């Protein structure tokens, strides 16, 4: 499997390690009223879609960047690869 790194170009998947669902970017506010419930959802509950899935991958044997990879779990086709920091900033994180 090849992951087309947005900065470095195509790299072999063996250079990367997989973390999990990209929803891990959406860490809840620990000071909110419903923080306990929100963190329960955040830590334990995952969707398990048969189809497109956004995942966090780490380029450990490369430039050490975190990526959000959109992969079809049925076909393994990778339709999109983005820098995780760009995705996080687009969602209003790291301001």
């Amino acid at each position, binding site marked *: 499997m090849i992951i087309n790194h947005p*900065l*470095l*170009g195509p790299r072999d998947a063996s*250079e990367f390690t997989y973390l999990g669902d990209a929803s891990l970017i959406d860490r809840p506010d620990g000071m909110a009223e419903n923080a306990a419930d929100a963190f329960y959802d955040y830590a334990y509950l995952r969707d398990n879609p048969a189809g497109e899935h956004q995942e966090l991958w780490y380029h450990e*044997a*490369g*430039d*050490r*960047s975190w990526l959000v990879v959109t992969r079809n779990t049925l076909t393994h086709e990778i339709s999109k690869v983005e820098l995780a920091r760009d995705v996080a900033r687009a969602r209003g994180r*790291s301001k």
Partner: protein
Amino acid sequence: MHDLVAKTALGGSEPRVDTVGSVTCTEVPGVALASVAARRGKETQAQKALVKLIGAPAPEVQRFTGDQVLAFWSGPDQWMIEAPFDSHEDLADQAKAIFGQTASVTEQTDAWARFDLLGDGINAVLELLCQLDLRRFEPGYAARSSIHHIGCFALCRGTDHVSLYGPRSSAGSLHHAVTTAMISAH
């Protein structure tokens, strides 16, 4: 502090040199290094400071620029600075004085071991060592990859000259991998 003996990463008093066929692997200890990471919101100023430090345009992705003081790309708005140890022993301090609050500078001298591969046929050695696309190895190319499960930087200085940087604590393993590949490729 007056009787200390300087040793190379492989533990010798002189840099190790291995030659197999036309390819030579040389340990290069005389290098000062520092890593630079631009601070959030200061990326443009940090890049300007880098240009001032190296006297050349800032390197693009997977490139290095500069001459005596050289910078190679290590990530978005992150660079590694390299200079001769004899003239730039305090490279991190020199860099910090120029970058100021625009970037975080970390001394990296002696955190890395450098091996230079020289000679015709180094590509045959490199293709055994790493997964990098050798067709992109042209002078000025700098990439990070895994060699023998060790995270290394490779800098292409010329068609027959590539520098490998690996963690100094793994220098022996990296040297073993390189010399084994040189024998296999011969």
